[in-house]
């Protein structure tokens, strides 16, 4: 028997549409697509598919397959994840699936199972193969997935108070969501989307906390740093934070009157920055001024994507701010919003020097805006002790990508990612500590429903077909008959062996 970790496909409901499948356990003979396509019905069988065969799932299910196991392509070190792998991953979420779907990492055992499950001419009935050949039996036994009751998604936000009266000083916010999304909840590492964002926010916080505590370096502007939860679930954490700031009367957070908000997402793949805005800023306002500064250290194209009010799903985090009439934009290395790497399990690596370069340019721009100095001066400023620390960025990215970060995993009790992030923020917030705003879906019709049971173990065992048993039974009956006869006729043998001359005397 061989046991492999198997990861259940992401199973949740968002905006009324359920994703992933309700079913959870499966047991049956493994069959590859090539064999399955030959058979009329695959009932009682488990489809063992390569990653590239994801589009064929619908037909496999149509053939009555009992469950699907997807095998991940072998791990590829080079940076930009393979596009069509991600496309396939996206395709998984096209529609809800009735059968249970598990994802398994590539490994020699699974390849062996592939060979065995590959039966070229399934049709012909030949006794020899029946006798000697073996079938691969796949079994996953897992408890039924339960709905996670009242998930509480924390959003951490802290502020570096400027020099002077807080309320009258201009305020800039820097936001990044900390959760990740992938085909399987336990494979959501999200190194670039949005490990790089988290590292950037923490590094900016570290740098500016040194400036705010430095002698004669305390700028006259407030900086708010936000690590928002529920980013991949339609930015619920940000939505809650913004609504609290704007609507509630006595909101102490001055986020409401921030000049603009910078959202950071996936800035770790290449050393370029693209600004995504819902509507191009007017020439005179602060955001435009910031763009001009940003363009000094290298041009930052602006991509304008109007918010589609009809659709409920937001594509960028800054749209939550724009909806509440707070000026905001997203800086990212990705050219457009629907790039697959934002929601993919293949997003496991970043280019640290690109991230460092991007963070440096953002830091230079923010400090130029905050100190009202030309960018060339602040470009020189962030050198020596104030240089962006690659080591810190690498440390944070390594930490956040060491464990899966999908919301389901984060909600588990033993998960320490959010508490560590909070401790990291407190370390750099000078006098105050990070405040937490909790998002809870409302009772009656929740924005999203999450299911637990994200992982299980797959058992692979070789099995003889049922016919084989029947055949074996018949052979045994024959054998027994022979024994019976031989025992009953044993007397002949005795007589044959007893000595000739010894007749029966009496």
């Amino acid at each position, binding site marked *: 028997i061989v046991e492999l970790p198997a990861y259940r496909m992401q199973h949740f409901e968002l905006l009324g549409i359920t994703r992933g499948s309700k079913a959870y356990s499966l047991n049956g003979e493994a069959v590859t697509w090539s064999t399955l396509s030959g058979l009329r019905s695959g009932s009682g069988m488990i489809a063992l598919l390569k990653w590239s065969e994801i589009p064929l799932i619908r037909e496999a299910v149509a053939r009555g397959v009992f469950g699907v196991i997807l095998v991940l392509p072998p791990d590829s070190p080079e940076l930009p994840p393979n596009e069509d792998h991600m496309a396939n991953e996206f395709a998984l979420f096209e529609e809800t699936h009735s059968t249970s779907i598990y994802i398994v990492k590539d490994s020699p055992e699974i390849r062996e199972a592939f060979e065995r499950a590959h039966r070229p001419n399934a049709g012909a009935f030949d006794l020899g193969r029946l006798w000697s050949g073996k079938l691969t039996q796949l079994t996953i036994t897992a408890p039924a997935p339960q709905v996670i009751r009242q998930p509480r998604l924390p959003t951490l936000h802290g502020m570096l108070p400027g020099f002077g009266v807080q309320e009258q000083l201009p305020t800039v916010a820097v936001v990044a969501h900390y959760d990740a999304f992938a085909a399987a909840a336990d494979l959501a590492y999200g190194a670039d989307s949005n490990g790089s964002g988290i590292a950037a926010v923490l590094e900016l916080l570290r740098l500016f906390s040194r400036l705010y505590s430095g*002698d004669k370096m305390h*700028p006259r502007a407030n900086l708010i740093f936000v690590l928002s939860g529920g980013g991949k679930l339609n930015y619920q954490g940000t939505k809650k934070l913004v609504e609290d700031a704007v609507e509630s009367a006595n909101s102490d957070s001055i986020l409401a009157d921030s000049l603009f908000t910078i959202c950071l997402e996936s800035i770790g793949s290449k050393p370029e920055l693209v600004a995504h805005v819902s509507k191009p800023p007017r020439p005179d306002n602060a955001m435009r001024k910031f763009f001009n500064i940003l363009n000094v250290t290298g041009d930052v194209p602006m991509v304008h994507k109007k918010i589609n009010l009809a659709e409920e799903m937001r594509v960028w985090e800054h749209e939550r701010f724009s909806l509440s009439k707070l000026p905001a934009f997203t800086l990212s290395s990705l050219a457009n919003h629907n790039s697959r790497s934002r929601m993919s399990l293949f997003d496991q690596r970043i280019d640290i020097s690109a991230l460092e370069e991007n963070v440096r340019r953002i830091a230079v721009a923010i400090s130029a805006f905050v100190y009202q100095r030309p960018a060339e001066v602040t470009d020189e400023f962030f050198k020596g*002790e104030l240089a962006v620390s690659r080591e810190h960025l690498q*440390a944070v990215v390594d930490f956040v990508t*060491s464990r899966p970060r999908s919301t389901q995993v984060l909600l588990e009790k033993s998960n*320490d990612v959010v508490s560590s992030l909070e401790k*990291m923020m407190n370390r750099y917030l000078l006098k105050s500590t990070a405040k937490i705003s909790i998002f809870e879906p409302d009772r009656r019709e929740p924005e999203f429903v999450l299911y637990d049971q994200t992982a299980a173990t797959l058992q692979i065992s070789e099995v003889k077909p049922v016919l084989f048993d029947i055949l074996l039974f018949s052979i045994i009956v024959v054998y027994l008959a022979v024994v019976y006869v031989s025992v009953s006729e044993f007397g002949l043998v005795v007589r044959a062996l007893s000595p000739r001359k010894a007749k029966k005397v009496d």
Partner: protein
Amino acid sequence: QDDMFTCGGFIRSSMPIPFEKVKVKLLTTAGNLKAETEGTANNGYYLLPVYDKGKYQLRVEGPNGWAFDPPAVDIDLNGEDSCSQGRDINFEFKGFSVMGKVISKGSTNGPAGVEVILVDAGSTRTVKTLEGGNFVFPAVPPGVYSIKFRGEVAAVEVKNDNVRLNESVFVIEGYSLKVSFTENRAPCRPNWDLPKAKGSVILAHKDNVPCCGRSLSKDLPKGFSLPAEYHVSCVAKISTDGSYEFPCVKAASKYALFAHVLTQSGQAVDISPEKMDLDVTHADRLLDPFQVTGFPVSGAVKDAGGKVEIKVLETGFETVSDKDGTFRLGSLRGGKYTLQLRKNGLHFENKVIHVDPSKASLPDIFPDKFEVCGDVRVSDSVDIEITEVKSNQIIRARSEVSSGRFCSLLVRGEHIIRPKHSVRLSPWEVKIQVPLTEGQRLVFSQFSAVVRGKVACLGKVCAGVKVALNGASTAKTVANSDGSFMFKSVDPGTYEVCVSHSKSCFEKDCQPITVIDQNIENIQFVQRGYTLRLETSHETELEVAGNVIKVNSGLSSHCIAESKTIPIKSVGCHKFAKADKLVFSPNSEDTVVLNAESHRLKVEINSKLLVEDLRLTCKKGEEVQVANLKEYKKSGDTYIYLTELYQPKGAELILEPHSESLVFKPPQLTMRMPDDCIAIAISGRTGIFIDGAIKPAIAGVEVTVSTKENAKPCKAITDVHGKYRAGPLESQEYTIEAQKEGYGFERIPNSNDMTAVKYSRIDIRVVDGETNAPLAGALVSIAGGSEYRNTTRTGAQGELALIKLNPGDYYVRVMMKEYKFEPLSTMVSVSENSEELLSIKGKKVAYSVMGKVTSITGEAEQGVGLEAISEKCDRHEEDGISDRLGQFRIRGLREGCTYEIRLKKRSDDALPHFDRFLPATQSVSIQRSDITMDLIVVRPLKSTTLSVALRADPAILPTLRVSVWNGGRQLYSHRGARFLTFPQDIPLDGSKYHIELHHQNAKPPPHMSVIWINDVNNLTDFTSPAFFTEKPYHHLELEIQVDEKTAAGHGQTPAPASPFVAVLSVFVALAIFYRKELGDLLRHRQDSSPAAGDRRKNKSR
């Protein structure tokens, strides 16, 4: 207005020289040029502006070769030096320079250090040639001169510039070679000792270089052959004292010298060194002398047995005599040598021998003294006297403390040995014959005694009196009831017997005794009275039982011959606490305590006048005591008034004498009552007033009258008639001064009146040439008349008023940084009581860089040192510093130069240290206008943040503990977690920090957990690689596996079953298996023995 100094003076010259050709430069200590100017054409006056304090050097430079005295002057501009005092720094022109060269024949340069003489009409001057033969006569005033060198003469004429002699004039033929005897080379005797010896030294050279001059011959001495490759240059005879000389040798290299000497018997003496190589450079040479190595000598030592060590002191040659005493000394030359001989038990004097080539053997040598030893059985060292009978001469020796043994070297003959010791020894003296016969030994030993005595006590009972005997050895005992005491086994020697008792005191406390050779019986002590112990805070006199005893402060004890309790009365100047209850009681042992409450203060006031109303007020805090002094004592012509006050210690008193007609010195006296009695004196004298007038009458003149004793001078203002009155003054001698703007005052001798004179004045206005804007802070210097000189700064409107000028013509000269004034100096003539107005225009030539230094947030940064250096314009450097508002201005930058503005490294740490400014360096090129430039300065942030990521299996994480250490000190520790950031910033002081990871329950077994970190295998805790802090952020990845090695092993290893049991079991099994045969066997045995019979029977049933 930044302050500005000036350095000026005159370039003096006895003959007219073009002064404008002479430059005076002001250099910084680092040699950077700060300012330069030329002497003025007419009187060679020069003036240099200096803008900030510090050390500079004033250097005068005429055209090359002109000599000035002094060439440069170091000044330290700090307010007291000659510049800031306005004194002149003058440079004297000495003259031009005359140069030339001396060469040796056949080469282009010549000897150094050869003398050349310059002769003019009157004096001569000599100078030594420098390296290569050049010579320079500096500071030669114009005129006709002649230069002499070794007989050759050259004439030369100096007009208005330097003169150079052509080279071919002075040539040297050759140099002399002489031998020199220096002490360190020839060992303590002249190296040459063969009288009437014949010898010669040959100079040779590979290629034939004959000696110059003609005194020496070239033929070789007979019996000497030159090595093949050499040719003879010349041969010199060796004189009697061993010296030789080659008068004239051409300058060449690789000469060779050989020596050849014969003794008078014609033997060749061997000489070292064989051949001497030498080079003749451009100078005479001194050569090392040749040395003669010599021939062998022999001798014998008698009456000393064998094995005597012999050493020749001069040559350090050592040998040992064989058993019959003969010895041989090697390689000695002629002359006197000293031999040193040594053998234990014997003593030899140093023997002086004369070695002569003719007689090869030495006279016999005998030992001078023999060693004699003995023992003294006494426990310390004893003196022993040994007198020789024949010559009655005494030798002293001492015995050793521990062993008592003594030894001495004695001359042959009869001796008497007598030990000298405080105690008699026996035997008293011994007579011996040196050298001692075999087996004879000397021994001496000692005597001991008993001491007894009696104490006479007053009360006939003297129990408990302690008696002590101290001297060489000490002993203690207590006298018994009748007062007698005894000491046994006392060694001879001087002792002292003392008695002591806590309550009684004796006539004599101690008596000296000496024990020689009998016992001592009759020691007597008599008790005089009882002791009184006192503890007083101050030295005072007390009266007890009629007699007055003087007690000094602290603890003291006195002997009182009273046997009953009597009171103690204090007589001194202190008042004691509880004075009435002080009492002496003989039989109490506790001490009487006296501490003074208050002390007497005696005040004396003496005055020349008899005064009635003299009062002395004494203020202590609020309480005031007034004592009017009536009674007085008259001594001579002064009356002395007396009073006494009793004041406690430490009281603050203010004494003030009052009298109408007296002035007191000091008028008021504040003092603190010391911890003892004290007396003070105050003197009073009559007061004096004076009055006088100013002619012609001028009102508002301020008159100050000051007396010698530095009391405050009193001031008075003259009224409209010019009169004033000042006083009271103490003494007759006083000085009067008057002051008013624009007036000079003279005192009319021996009267209090003054005469006034009005000066004439000049008003000067300095403006910018183009813009006509007033130039504030321009430096105006006026020199003229005999010695008048004044440099002052123009006011805010560029105006300057010069008053108090005597008539005469004055040179006015204006200087301001960055401005040039045409004409350089203007001439003004001043007549009596006249008013002149002068306006001077200046043209801007140099410009300045100014601006504001701020931090990144725009706040001004004070004390930022900036410097502007232009490499192109010969390293001209100017610097500036930012003031409180962050403004800075670097002045005096020359047009057309590009300067680089840099942060100046400030050495003193007082000012905040800046290490970067943005942009890093600014280069600015100066055109015809000032430049403003804003700079941003960054303060260093010297600290780093530390974080640690622990990769371990979650179970053991909570049991870990991470701590940061610096040196031995733990800074911070925290429970293990996957990611840890340490709260404090760690200062970037370059010191060593390291992280320790402790595993909590890694106590010793029951089970031991071993933590592997990277490759460090460490039992309980681990130290990360130490890290130096210089990066702003540090992150450490620690990966930990824990191996739960169960140390207890796998339970009990079973006691090894002994193979014996197994074998037994096999037999049992076989027995069972073959029990049939066994049974048969047994039965078979039964047949043979009857006893077994019946068993077989029932068995067969």
